[in-house]
């Protein structure tokens, strides 16, 4: 006789199950189970994981679910076939959609309605009552179930070594006999091995929001809910052999497998009754004619034909058409979009308008996608303007219906910090101890490291702490909740909830499915990513501005037709503030070395400054080869083809994976598994297994071991930030387009960029400075001239228009208030009262005054504020418009404001100032300290000692740089790039983190156009800025101790007289510097 476990709770029953589905399956295999049922609570989210783990192994997953009902005992449900599964899925969807996200409310009636073909096991309460009986409501519910479900109902019997097990079993047997409901043995498995009980206890605490010490009877009293060997289960149920036999009955009847689910494309993608392939052929040639004119080059035509036959062979036409549908809609609505991914870089996609990367311009990437050997699903992600993506999503929901289109889920995993917090809290550690512990994983490393723990004042050998850490380690990687994928859509022909339960997303008007993208892929469903990209919004706005002010009709494809040397020249000088992707500090220091000359160089540029190539130490070899300092060689003949286009150095994710296949003998599936296991850091054991296989495989084929290790490290880097060539190409296109606009229309570019904020790497202040450097006139915000957005105005001189800053730059101002202002601005405002009469609230007027926006009324910010603050008792009602009582108060003179004060207040209101740079006011004092202005650094010699000072723009400690901190500072002449090594950083940590105005002493490193200052000492000069906010010549009042105070003067006990001054001193007024990892 054999036994099948039918009641298994995995960790997809969040905070209940103590093991991953994979672990359960592995353990079941090890124990010799041939089948195992997975029954998570009101969800099928974990089922695909188990299915994937069982695939190709000697075990079958019985798909099941535990239905927790609002009005009755729980039921375990096992669908017999596809139709029954569809009903189960629908049932869960009903429960999900009737309530908010994360909950599922089901009633008996729902179950009865959709019960056909499903076998049920009723779960009895865990304990008998004081008179050793089941409560009457359970028996009554059971009778009702029996009546509704007939002989598809069973009754679960457990022996988990509770008290009164024998009595309980006896009562169950009685019930079973009386009602004719067969008993089924289950062990209510919550974890795969008994040792997991501790983690399961902690999960219970997290769920119940208590500590382990308070949890009491909410925990299980023993560790018996593990997956027991069959023999043990047979022994436990020796008295009830039919309960064991019934497990086989259910297992034999529940044959549904996820493999039988079929994904069918929607019909709507074709027009006039055509078949998908016919439709695709038609649309492609139509598009080709549009793109290439009537004379389609032979080469292109041949390529199109080849691709179309390939698509037909693989039956991908529907997929391309689905994507085409979205893109078509976006184009109709004038929403910019751009596809990326391996399949996106095909001529077909170019013709369909999915991508603007002209595949004839460079090596056809689609070729590699089109290999029949690689049986992977096509992958097209489409980026849309971030402000308008929702329109596209709603279009999809509307066209296909909420029951046929849904967003893929993301399973949020517990990361180390969250794990420490949760487990620490459950273990009763104090808030402070927890934050110190999680401080041990501060900044980048995902590992919890021993020295850090000691450093933070813990004893790493303390048993309680050790247990906490051990459980934390186990907990990391657990699924925590189902989130919403950024934009992955699944669309089907039939009802989607027949394939998978759907649920409400947290955002209104969106529905999700329970499975994530890997699950979807495992089952062969196809998804399309509808993503949002800020740069597309910026480009769209730039195009609109160019049309309005220059009469130019621009488009991505149009710009991309040419390769302007001027644009590449600009890029090569790292003049790329605000440009897509290549604006970061690391990119900027790479540009002058790489000196991109053509489009493909940009593709490489985008991909090279990434964790993958950096960790794999591939950057410098590539640079050396590119500058002809090193010959281009290939590790072997077979790799020449793969690495040819990148000078023998693997830079792209595909290349590294191909190396694994060609050079280490991986199967494509294995290589893909490898990449994926890198992405989920939980499977630590798996990674080292792959490392061995990869390195040994390559060494045995005659490759250098160090090269093999580098390839592996690179793969590791790709795992977290995968960047394949096809994506790089699509991004490079936007890099080129944004550079082109910046090069030819810097005014348009700056204006569009400011209107698309927040995005990218820089603050508005830097964009303004950069625009001015390119000869663009910037104009102050003004109540009489500004709009909500930044706008272009007729320039007074030069080639470009002037940019008028808009109200959106003023922090805290509401757009609605400004719309009132704009509506009332028929002619120029003459007085503050007019604005107030227009309905602009006093708070908004005050903000406008703070931003110095009343200059056209002849008022500076201080006078304007004086006027605004008097509006409180402005005549209203029938006296509206009359001048307020006491207007023209004479004899009141406000102190005049110095320029430096104005600048400080500009920064406070706008985060930028057009009047002057703050550092310029302290230049004379900096000069005394022998500090070199940033723009004079290039005139000095490499290796010279130097001092620089400026406002901190960006602090960056990339995980790939071994603790090195990169800082960019800015003075009135430009920016300087600092490098702070770990040791120096640790020593001057306080200065680096707290300063607004940082002074650094160090050595100059000049390499061509790339200039760095390697810091040896850091000083906080923020105190100089403090003086800017006060009237010239007056010292900020420090309190001296009073006469009665006999103690030595302690200069600390003063109250700074003004919050603003204090802010300036702390650097809060000026951008605190942005931190990137």
């Amino acid at each position: 006789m054999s036994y099948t476990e039918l009641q298994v709770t995995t960790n997809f029953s969040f905070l209940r199950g103590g093991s991953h589905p994979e672990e359960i399956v592995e353990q079941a295999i090890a124990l010799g189970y041939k089948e195992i049922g997975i029954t998570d609570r009101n969800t099928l989210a974990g089922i695909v994981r188990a299915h994937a783990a069982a695939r190709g192994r000697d075990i079958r997953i019985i798909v099941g679910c535990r239905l927790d009902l609002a009005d009755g005992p729980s039921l375990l449900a096992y669908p017999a076939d596809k139709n029954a599964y569809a009903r189960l899925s629908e049932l869960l969807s009903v429960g999900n959609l009737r309530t908010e996200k994360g909950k599922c409310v089901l009633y008996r009636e729902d179950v009865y309605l959709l019960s056909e073909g499903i076998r049920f096991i009723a779960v009895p309460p865990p304990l008998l009552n004081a008179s050793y009986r089941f409560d009457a409501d359970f028996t009554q519910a059971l009778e009702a179930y029996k009546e509704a479900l007939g002989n598809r109902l069973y009754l679960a019997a457990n022996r988990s070594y509770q008290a009164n097990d024998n009595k309980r079993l006896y009562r169950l047997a009685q019930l079973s006999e009386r009602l004719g409901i067969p008993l089924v043995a289950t062990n209510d498995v919550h974890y795969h091995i008994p040792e997991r009980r501790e983690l399961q206890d902690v999960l219970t605490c997290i769920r119940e929001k208590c500590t382990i010490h308070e949890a009491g009877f909410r925990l299980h009293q023993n560790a018996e809910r593990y997956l027991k060997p069959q023999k043990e289960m047979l022994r436990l149920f020796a008295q009830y052999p039919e309960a064991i036999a019934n497990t086989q009955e259910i297992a034999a009847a529940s044959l549904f497998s996820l493999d039988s689910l079929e994904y069918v494309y929607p019909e709507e993608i074709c027009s006039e009754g055509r078949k998908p392939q016919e439709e695709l052929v038609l649309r492609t040639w139509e598009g080709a004619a549009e793109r290439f004119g009537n004379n389609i080059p032979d080469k292109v035509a041949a390529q199109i034909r080849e691709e179309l036959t390939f698509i037909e062979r693989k039956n991908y036409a529907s997929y391309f058409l689905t994507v085409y549908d979205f893109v078509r809609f976006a184009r109709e609505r004038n929403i910019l979009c751009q596809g990326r991914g391996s399949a996106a870089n095909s001529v077909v996609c170019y013709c369909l308008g999915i991508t603007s990367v002209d595949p004839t311009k460079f090596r056809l990437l689609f070729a590699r996608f089109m290999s029949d050997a690689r049986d992977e699903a096509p992958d097209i992600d489409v980026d849309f303007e971030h402000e308008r993506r929702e329109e596209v999503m709603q279009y999809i929901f509307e066209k296909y219906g909420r029951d046929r289109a849904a967003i893929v889920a993301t399973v949020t995993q517990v990361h180390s910090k969250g794990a420490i917090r949760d487990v620490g809290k459950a273990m009763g550690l104090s808030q402070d101890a927890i934050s110190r512990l999680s401080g041990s994983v501060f900044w980048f490393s995902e590992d919890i490291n021993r020295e850090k723990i000691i450093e933070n004042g813990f004893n790493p050998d303390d048993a309680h702490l050790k247990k906490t850490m051990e459980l934390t380690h186990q907990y990391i990687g657990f699924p925590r909740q189902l989130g919403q994928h950024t934009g992955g859509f699944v669309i089907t022909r039939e009802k989607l909830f027949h394939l998978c339960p759907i649920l409400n997303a947290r955002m209104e008007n969106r529905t999700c499915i329970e499975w994530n993208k890997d699950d979807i892929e495992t089952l062969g469903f196809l998804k399309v990513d509808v993503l949002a990209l800020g740069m597309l919004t910026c480009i769209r706005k730039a195009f609109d501005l160019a049309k309005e002010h220059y009469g130019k009709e621009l488009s991505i494809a149009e710009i991309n037709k040419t390769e302007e040397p001027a644009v590449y020249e600009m890029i090569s000088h790292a003049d790329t503030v605000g440009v897509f992707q290549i604006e970061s500090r690391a990119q900027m220091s790479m540009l002058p070395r790489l000196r991109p000359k053509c489009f493909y160089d940009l593709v490489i540029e985008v991909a090279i400054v990434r964790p993958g190539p950096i960790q794999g130490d591939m950057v410098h070899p590539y640079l050396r080869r590119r500058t002809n300092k090193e010959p281009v060689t290939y590790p072997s003949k077979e790799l020449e083809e793969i690495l040819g286009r990148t000078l023998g150095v693997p830079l792209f994710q595909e290349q590294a994976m191909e190396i694994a296949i060609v050079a280490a003998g991986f199967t494509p599936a294995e290589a893909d598994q490898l990449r994926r296991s890198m992405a989920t850091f939980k499977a630590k054991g798996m990674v080292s297994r792959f490392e061995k296989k990869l390195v040994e495989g390559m060494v045995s084929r005659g490759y250098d071991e160090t090269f093999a290790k580098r390839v592996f490290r690179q793969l590791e880097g790709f795992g977290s930030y995968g960047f394949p060539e096809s994506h790089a190409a699509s991004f490079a296109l936007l890099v080129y387009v944004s550079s082109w606009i910046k090069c030819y229309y810097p005014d348009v570019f700056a204006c569009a960029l400011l209107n698309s904020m927040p995005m990218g790497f820089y603050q508005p202040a830097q964009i303004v400075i950069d625009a001015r450097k390119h000869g663009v006139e910037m104009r102050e915000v003004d109540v009489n001239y500004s709009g909500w957005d930044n706008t272009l105005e007729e320039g007074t001189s030069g080639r470009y228009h002037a940019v008028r800053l808009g109200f959106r730059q003023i922090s805290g101002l509401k757009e609605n208030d400004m719309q009132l202002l704009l509506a009332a601005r028929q002619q120029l405002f003459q007085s503050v009262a007019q604005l107030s009469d227009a309905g602009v609230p006093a708070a908004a007027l005050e903000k406008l005054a703070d931003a110095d926006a009343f200059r056209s009324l002849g008022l500076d910010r201080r006078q304007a504020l004086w006027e605004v603050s008097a509006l409180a008792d402005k005549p209203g009602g029938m006296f509206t418009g009359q001048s307020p009582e006491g207007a023209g108060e004479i004899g009141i003179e406000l102190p005049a404001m110095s320029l430096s004060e104005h600048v400080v207040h500009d920064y406070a209101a706008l985060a930028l100032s057009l009047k002057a740079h703050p550092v310029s006011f302290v230049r004379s004092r900096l000069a005394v300290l022998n500090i070199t202005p940033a723009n004079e650094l290039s005139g000095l010699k490499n290796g010279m000692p130097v001092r620089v000072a400026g406002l901190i723009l960006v602090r960056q400690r990339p995980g790939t740089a071994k603790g090195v901190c990169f800082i960019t500072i800015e003075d009135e002449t430009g920016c300087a790039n600092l490098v702070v090594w770990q040791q120096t950083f640790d020593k001057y940590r306080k200065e680096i983190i707290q300063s607004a105005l940082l002074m650094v002493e160090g050595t100059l490193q000049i390499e061509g156009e790339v200039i760095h200052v390697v810091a040896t000492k850091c000083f906080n000069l923020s105190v100089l800025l403090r003086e800017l906010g006060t009237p010239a010549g007056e010292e900020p009042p420090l309190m001296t101790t009073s006469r009665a105070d006999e103690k030595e003067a302690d200069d600390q006990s003063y109250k700074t007289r003004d919050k603003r001054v204090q802010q300036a001193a702390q650097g809060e007024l000026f951008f605190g510097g942005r931190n990137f990892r």
Partner: protein
Amino acid sequence: MAKRYAAIWFPHLITDRIVRRLPELRGQPFVLAAPEHGRMVIRAASLKAEQCGVRTGMAIADARAALPGLQVIDHIPGLEQKLLCWLAEWCLRFTPIAGIDLPDGLLLDTSGCAHLWGGEERYLGDILAKLRQLGFDCRGGMADTIGAAWAISRYGRTGCIIAPGEQLQAIMPLPPAALRLSSNITEKLQKLGLYEIGNFTKMPRRALHRRFGQQLISRLDQALGQEFEPLQPVQPVQPYAERLPCPEPIRTATGIEIALQQLLEMLCRRLAAEEKGLRRAVFKSYRIDGNVQQITIGTSRPSHNVAHLFRLFDIRISSLEPDLGFELFLLEAPVVESATAAQEALWHSNSVNDDKLAELVDRLVCRLGDRSVFRYLPAEHYWPERSARAAASLDEKPATEWRVDLPRPVHLLPKPEPVEVAVPLPDYPPMHFRYNGMLHRVRKADGPERIEQEWWLQRGEYRDYYAVEDEAGRRYWLFRSGHYGATTPRWFLHGFFA
């Protein structure tokens, strides 16, 4: 008489108090923090921490980033108030009227006090010096008005005493914040360039009122003495103690009893008036030769019943040795809890709520010793030894119910006692067992119930419990420690069923 006020400011009130408690923190960077919107926010920072750039209102994470060694102590809400009350009471030695000024100051009405110390400078100097001796960093100011004294104590640059009638000149150079204005007003004044109070004192009141509202005007008037500002004085709490000096030394038990009776009546009258009851009382007897003897009693619930308390003391009065006689008796109640007089039930008085039971318990404890009477409550633990715990008082409500759905013995041994057994099969109860030399044959049995270790408290083997009945019909709770596959499983007897 003209009014004079002093304001005292404690820039590091909270942290100074922490240092008083934990002297090892002196000179260390540390902060007090409390959770706010899910993150820990600094509520007070020590001088050293401030010097390192840590400020009140920063998040702990930010402060730690700058100062990794920063020590964090949990902030106690309401601590400022308590501390200031204490300091204000302490200040009563300098003036009869002292008030607190949250969050970090004191206000003293010093009218007519200073001359006793030989002038205001010496008076204020003395207060500040003594406060510093207590460990509190402080600054002070004196003036005709509370407002001016406050301003000069916080923002004064040259002197800290404003001569009578000179408050206007004195506060003119101070920043507007010295007027105790809300931050939006000071911010607005700042933006308008009105950095000093003197910038706007001459402006028409109307113009000021329109822009800044009544608060500015009011505060200005208060500082200048044109508007009266009341001071809310604190009153010290009296400790619960009574004294009875004796004109003649007392040597007899009767004499002591009379004294005790009198003291109890005095104390209980006061307790009853305040709806309080004592949980502990100390009766101190001072002998003429300087020797002090004392009797301590405790009660299981707050009481102000003279007769009951007297009986508790009475049992032990014989232990006092009057020798040459006592000259002073003192009765103190160090632990006092509130005791609301409950309305007497007419009939069916609940035994637990009955004072008689409590009083019986008190008497038993008095006679038999401290650890002789217990009340047990169920505790939420599966592990039998921890499933019940001694209650702290008769009134304590159980956090959980006694479980009735599990077989649990009426008498649980504090320590399981080993027994010899004969066991047929795994997961079966023993056939017979030997306990205290007696052999018991098992007739009926139930089990096993497996109880695992509470791993967060201790490690070890789990237990399989069996309830068994012997031939005589007596029932026992036995368990086997550890897995039956283990080499020699050990068996224990842990309790008796009725």
